[in-house]
């Protein structure tokens, strides 16, 4: 690497960390239901060694019945130990993992290109471009700035692939063991990788080790060990719960085995292909408020020509970069194809890596092709477009998104709990209607563990024997106020002026 490349690499790292840690607690606005559950379970593990239901050091966390994997929760315990029980601590592991993924991608691309004699001289530049693109990627940023397990798993995955490539490059057997350890962690961190990782491992074996070499015994031993370490995960109660909840086939009537045999593969094919549609990648993502910013797709518009050019020129080559990129590209949407809804930005997050590699290959390739006088004009124009679209994204992410999508990120649950805590001394009992907001109990546990409300359904009325008691009735509601003895209506600062919560004195 030249000195210029080293300087640029440091600048890219600085940009990566800034974009992932700047106002991390505030944007996205508030912890989502899943983040609070992760945070609270991490907190109880830290304090008692048990999850929220009292199960000691579990491998699967029951949570809302979705049986969360332990990787992110145990990591968050360390983060809470360091930063305390707050939003920053819950998001820190993901932001750090996102930043490290950028660094891992740089080394992955560089080392892959260094293995190819023809591309050696371009290795540093393509690696740098890939790192820069991932650093500013709306798709990767979105998941790096919130407590998403998939982001931590993606880091383990890319790190594992890089370690394996290093082991081949340096003929270092020890790195294979490290690589497989990192692959094992993906199994324990996010559900999708239970499908993605085995396929990737098979692909990597096919690319690097199918011909006999000195690795055979090491590999067999390593794979047996990996299978043994991963096995307990599959034997746990609820290990398939998440798949049962999200399986793609429920909406199709398949009464017979024959109908299943021809329907399921076509459904999987359609779901798989949907992850490569322009509507998903460029126009609007998957439509979930928590998964992307409005008016900005998962990829920048300006990257499209480079994606096409990069794809065509990369796949015509015979290189390790091509094989690995193709493997990552084809593997990434595999798990998401078996689930619904589809396409799904979160479950297909690994797709961001091969797409970034292809685009960076396209950018460097095209710039190499263009001759000098046109090159300067092209570079100036490109820089203007790139900067404008990046600023447009930042404007939406920091300006509009926190206000428009407040309700996607827990609305004012936190404020609700803090207000109830403030008022508690004036009341004998706090009663919370949790029928509409199933997340209320976990928010109370995370933000207001000094309060132990009574959770009731919407039909609840004050019992006669409690006539003398002064009760604070917390009633979640959208858009309408009640005339009943109103204590307070909380209106969060969002453009729609939704009424989120009502406090009734009864």
């Amino acid at each position, binding site marked *: 690497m030249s000195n210029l490349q080293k300087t640029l690499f440091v600048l890219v790292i600085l940009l990566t960390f800034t974009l992932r840690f700047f106002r991390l607690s505030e944007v996205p606005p508030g912890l989502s239901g899943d983040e609070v559950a992760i945070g609270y379970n991490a907190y109880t593990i830290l304090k008692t060694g048990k999850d929220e239901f009292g199960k000691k050091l579990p491998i699967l966390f029951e949570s809302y019945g979705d049986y969360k994997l332990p990787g992110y929760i145990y990591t968050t315990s360390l983060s809470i130990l360091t930063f305390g029980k707050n939003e920053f601590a819950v998001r820190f592991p993901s932001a750090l993992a996102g930043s490290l993924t950028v660094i891992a991608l740089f080394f992955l691309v560089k080392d892959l290109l260094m293995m190819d004699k023809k591309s050696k001289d371009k290795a540093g530049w393509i690696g740098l471009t890939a790192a820069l693109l991932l650093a500013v990627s709306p798709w990767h940023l979105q998941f790096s700035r919130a407590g998403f397990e998939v982001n931590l798993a993606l880091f383990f995955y890319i790190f594992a692939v890089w370690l394996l490539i290093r082991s081949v490059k340096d003929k270092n057997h020890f790195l294979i063991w490290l690589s497989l350890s990192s692959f094992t962690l993906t199994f324990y961190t996010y559900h999708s990788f239970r499908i993605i990782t085995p396929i990737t491992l098979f692909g990597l074996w096919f690319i690097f080790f199918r011909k006999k070499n000195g690795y055979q015994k090491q590999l067999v031993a390593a794979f047996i060990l990996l299978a043994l370490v991963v096995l307990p995960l599959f034997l746990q109660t609820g290990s398939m719960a998440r798949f049962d909840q999200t399986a793609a086939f429920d909406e199709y009537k398949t009464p017979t085995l024959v109908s299943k045999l021809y329907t399921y593969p076509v459904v999987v094919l359609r779901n798989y292909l949907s992850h490569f549609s*322009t509507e998903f990648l460029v126009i609007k993502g998957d439509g979930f408020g928590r998964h992307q910013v409005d008016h900005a797709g998962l990829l920048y518009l300006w990257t499209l020509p480079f994606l096409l050019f990069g794809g065509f020129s990369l796949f015509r080559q015979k290189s390790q970069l091509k094989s690995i990129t193709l493997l990552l590209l084809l593997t990434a949407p595999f798990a998401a194809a078996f689930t619904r809804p589809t396409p799904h930005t979160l479950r297909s997050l690994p797709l961001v890596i091969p797409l970034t590699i292809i685009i960076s290959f396209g950018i460097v390739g095209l710039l190499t092709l263009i001759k000098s006088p046109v090159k300067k004009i092209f570079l100036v124009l490109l820089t203007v477009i790139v900067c404008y679209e990046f600023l447009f994204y930042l404007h939406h992410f920091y300006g509009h998104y926190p206000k428009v999508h407040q309700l996607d990120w827990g609305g004012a649950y936190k404020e609700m709990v803090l207000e109830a805590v403030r008022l508690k001394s004036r009341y004998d009992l706090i009663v919370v209607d949790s029928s509409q907001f199933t997340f209320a109990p976990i928010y109370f546990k995370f933000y207001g563990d000094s309060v132990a409300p009574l959770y009731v359904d919407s039909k609840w009325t004050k019992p006669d024997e409690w006539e003398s008691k002064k009760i604070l009735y917390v009633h979640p509601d959208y858009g309408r106020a009640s005339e009943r003895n109103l204590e307070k209506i909380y209106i969060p600062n969002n453009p729609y002026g939704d009424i989120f919560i009502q406090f009734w004195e009864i």
Partner: protein
Amino acid sequence: MINILFYLLFLTSEVLALRTWAYCKNLQDNLFHFSMSRFDLSVIEATTGKVDSSIFLIRFFHNKIILFFSQVFNLYLNFWDLLVMVNMISVVGFVFMIYGIYSLIEKRRLRVLSIIFFAALFLQLAEIFLNPTIPFLFKFILISLPYLLLSFFGFKAYTIDGKSKGRLVVVLIFLVVSVLWLVVFQPQGPAYCVKIQ
């Protein structure tokens, strides 16, 4: 003889896929059409509301030029959406369309490719801006023509010019997948066309 049979099967599969779009015939709007009223609404949405912002930021990020180009570009991208193309010319048609593009570039017949792409560009831009009262069949032929041409070119390049021994088996597999696709999924017209109330 067998090649003719495969051509007929290929054509049938594309026609069957195209036929599902007949749903759009009696409707007045579709996903691909640029509407000035929709544009005006998005300008109002982008420049008003309760989001506090400086006038400079509003002018810089939410101006009519950017909104116009982003809307037209998004509409144009819809034509190259993988699922739209699969639903328009069937799975087998899409596969050979990609192969057609690949072989045109590979054989450096870039002039032919450019002509087809420019035709697509203008035909589809015309669809984006044209009044929806233009006869549906005429409009639909114009939209689907570039895809059909490319897919037929790809099909010819693979089956007749190709050297692979098992190529007809590959074609057969894609034909079967295309038929199953049409059987399993409801006609996709309703996903792309809407009725103006």
